[in-house]
C-alpha cells in the first residue's frame, strides 16, 4: 500500500512542479527576436520607459506576457482535469466540449454590444464570458442526454457539434466587425497571448488561483465521482452538489482564460494526460500539478509562437492544436479500444 497520497508527498510534488514552472518561465523570458542582456536589465537605469530597452523588453513586455500565458495554461489544464472527472471521460476538455467557444461567443456578443474588451478586469465582459460558458455546459449536458445512449460518449459528440455551431456564429459575428478590428479579432479567436495591463493580470490571477483552490477542496470527491453517480452516493458524496460546483468553477476559470487569450485548445487534454502518466490519477495531486505544468506548457507554446516566424507571431492556439490534435487522436484510439473491451 505504498501509493496512497500523504500531505508530505503532495507538497513535494507541488514544489517540484513549481520549480519546473519557474525555470521554464525564466528561460522563456530570455528567448525572443530581440536579444537582451540580464546585466543591462538590472544594472542600468530604467526609471522611465525608453531609457533602458533591455529592461523594457524584459520587464514590461515579456514578463507580463509570460505570466499571462502561465495563467491561461493553469486555468485550462485545471478545467480539463475537472471536466474529465465529472464527465468520466478522459477526452473531455473545455475546447473540445465547446465551453471555450461558448465563452468566446459571450466575449464577442459583449464586444458587438459595444462593451470594450480593454477594461475586462471590471467589465461586464467577464460576466458575459462566464454566463455563456455555463450556458454551453448546460446545452452540451442536455444535448448529450437527449442524444440517448451512454451520456459519457454522447456528451463528447454534443460538445463537438455545439463547438462547430458556436464557431460558425462567431465567424458570422466577425464578418460584422469593421476590417480594422478583423485581424486582431481573428488572432484573438485563434488563441493569442498579447500584452495586458497589470490590473487585468492581477484580477485574472486572483480569479484563476481562487477557482483552482476551491476545486482542490473537492478534489478527493472528484476521485469518487469518476466511479459514477451511484457509487459516489454510496461512498457519502452528494454527486449533484459536487458536479454543480465543479462545472461552475471549471466554466468560470475557462471563461477567465478565454477572456485573456481567446481560444487555446487541447491544453486541458494534453496536460492532465501527461501528468496522470507521471503521478497517477488521484485528483488531489492531479489538479495542482496539472495547473502548474499546464502553465509551463502554455508558456513554452507561446514562446514558440512568438519566435518561430519572428519577427511575425503565430497565435499560441495554433501551436497547442498542432501538439494536441495528434495526442487527442492517439487517446481516442486508446479509449475506443478500452471501451470496446468493456462491452
Amino acid at each position, binding site marked *: 500500500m505504498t501509493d496512497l497520497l500523504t*500531505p508530505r508527498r503532495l507538497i513535494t510534488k507541488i514544489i517540484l512542479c513549481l520549480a519546473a514552472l519557474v525555470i521554464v518561465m525564466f528561460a522563456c523570458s530570455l528567448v525572443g527576436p530581440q536579444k537582451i542582456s540580464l546585466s543591462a536589465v538590472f544594472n542600468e537605469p530604467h526609471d522611465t520607459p525608453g531609457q533602458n530597452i533591455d529592461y523594457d523588453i524584459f520587464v514590461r513586455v515579456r514578463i507580463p506576457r509570460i505570466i499571462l500565458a502561465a495563467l491561461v495554461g493553469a486555468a485550462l489544464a485545471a478545467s480539463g482535469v475537472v471536466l474529465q472527472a465529472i464527465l*468520466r471521460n478522459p477526452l473531455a476538455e473545455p475546447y473540445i466540449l465547446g465551453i471555450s467557444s461558448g465563452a468566446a461567443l459571450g466575449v464577442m456578443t459583449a464586444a458587438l454590444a459595444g462593451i470594450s474588451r480593454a477594461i475586462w478586469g471590471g467589465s461586464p465582459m467577464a460576466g458575459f464570458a462566464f454566463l455563456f460558458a455555463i450556458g454551453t455546459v448546460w446545452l452540451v449536458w442536455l444535448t448529450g442526454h437527449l442524444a440517448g445512449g451512454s451520456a459519457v460518449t454522447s456528451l463528447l459528440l454534443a460538445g463537438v457539434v455545439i463547438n462547430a455551431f458556436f464557431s460558425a456564429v462567431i465567424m458570422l459575428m466577425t464578418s460584422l466587425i469593421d476590417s480594422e478590428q478583423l485581424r486582431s479579432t481573428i488572432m484573438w479567436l485563434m488563441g493569442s497571448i498579447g500584452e495586458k495591463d497589470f490590473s487585468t493580470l492581477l484580477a485574472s490571477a486572483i480569479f484563476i488561483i481562487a477557482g483552482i483552490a476551491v476545486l482542490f477542496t473537492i478534489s478527493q470527491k472528484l476521485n469518487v465521482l469518476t466511479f459514477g453517480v451511484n457509487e459516489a452516493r454510496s461512498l457519502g458524496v452528494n454527486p449533484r452538489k459536487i458536479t454543480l460546483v465543479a462545472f461552475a468553477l471549471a466554466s468560470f476559470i475557462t471563461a477567465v482564460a478565454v477572456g485573456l487569450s481567446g481560444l487555446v485548445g487541447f491544453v486541458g487534454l494534453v496536460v492532465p494526460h501527461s501528468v496522470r502518466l507521471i503521478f497517477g490519477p488521484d485528483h488531489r495531486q492531479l489538479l495542482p500539478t496539472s495547473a502548474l505544468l499546464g502553465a509551463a506548457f502554455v508558456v513554452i507554446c507561446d514562446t514558440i509562437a512568438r519566435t518561430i516566424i519572428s519577427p511575425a507571431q503565430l497565435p499560441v492556439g495554433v501551436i497547442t492544436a498542432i501538439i494536441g490534435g495528434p495526442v487527442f487522436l492517439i487517446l481516442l484510439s486508446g479509449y475506443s479500444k478500452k471501451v470496446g473491451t468493456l462491452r
Partner: protein
Amino acid sequence: MSACIQVENLGFSYGPQAEILKNLSFEIPAGTFLSIAGPNGAGKTTLLNLLSGLLKPASGSIEIDSKPISSYSVRRLAKRIAVVRQEFVPVFEFSAAQVVSMARTPYLGALAFETDTDKEAIAEALKMTDTARFADRPLGHLSGGERQRVFIARALAQQTPIMLLDEPTSFLDMKHQVGIYDLLKRMQIEKQKTIVSVTHDINLAAQYSDMILLLGSDGGYDYGAVSEVFSKERIERVFGVRTFTAAFGAREFFLPVGKFGLGSKDAK
C-alpha cells in the same frame, strides 16, 4: 436480535404501467445474511437501490436502525450502509489500494487526507480480502474475480454495519463464486455485519444465507428462513421451470431442467 432494516408496505414503480414492488414488508435482524432471489424483472436490484437510498419509495417506508432512511444525509448513510455492485473497470487507472481508500470518504476531514485510523481500516480490509498482494496494481489489470474482491474490500473498509451486494458473483467462475461467498460469510461472522445480497444463484444462496426474500414476477413474495422459503413447488412456480432437488441436511438444492435437459422426456 433487533431489526436493523425494517421495510413496511413498500411500493415502487417506474411509471403508471410499470409497478415493480407492492406492499412489501419484512424485517432484517442485525447480523443476518439475507439473499434476495427471484426471476428477471421481479425488482431485486430495484429493492437494493431502495434499501441503499438511491431510489425513493412510491409508498411505504424503509427504516435503518429505527430511523427513516430519508432522515439520513448522504454522508451519514454511507457510514451505515456499504454497497457492492457488479465489478467494472473504472475510466481512470486507480490502483486497488486507491479504490479501497475511497471507502474512507465519509470519514475524511476538510483536508481529505487519510489518517492513521483510515490507513488501518484500509490495510485490514486488504488483508481480510486477500487483495494486499496486488494493492498497487491498477484495477484494470486485475481479473474480474480480483476486482470484485477489491470492491468488497472497499465496502469492508467503509466499516458499516450493513453491506448490500448486487449479484456479486455474476460473470465469475465457480471457484471465485465460492470464494466471494466464503468471504461474505466470514465478514458476517467475524465482523457481525448484516449482509443483503441479490443473487440469481439460489443454490449458493441456500448454502450461505440465513434468510431468503423470494420475489415473484407478479409482485408476490416469500420471506423467511432458507428451509421455509426454498421448496420445490415454490421454486418451480416462481421461476416457471421444472427442477430436480437434492437434500443436504435440512436444506434443499435445485437443478433446473429444460425441455431437452437430462432426465426430461425429450432428452436424447
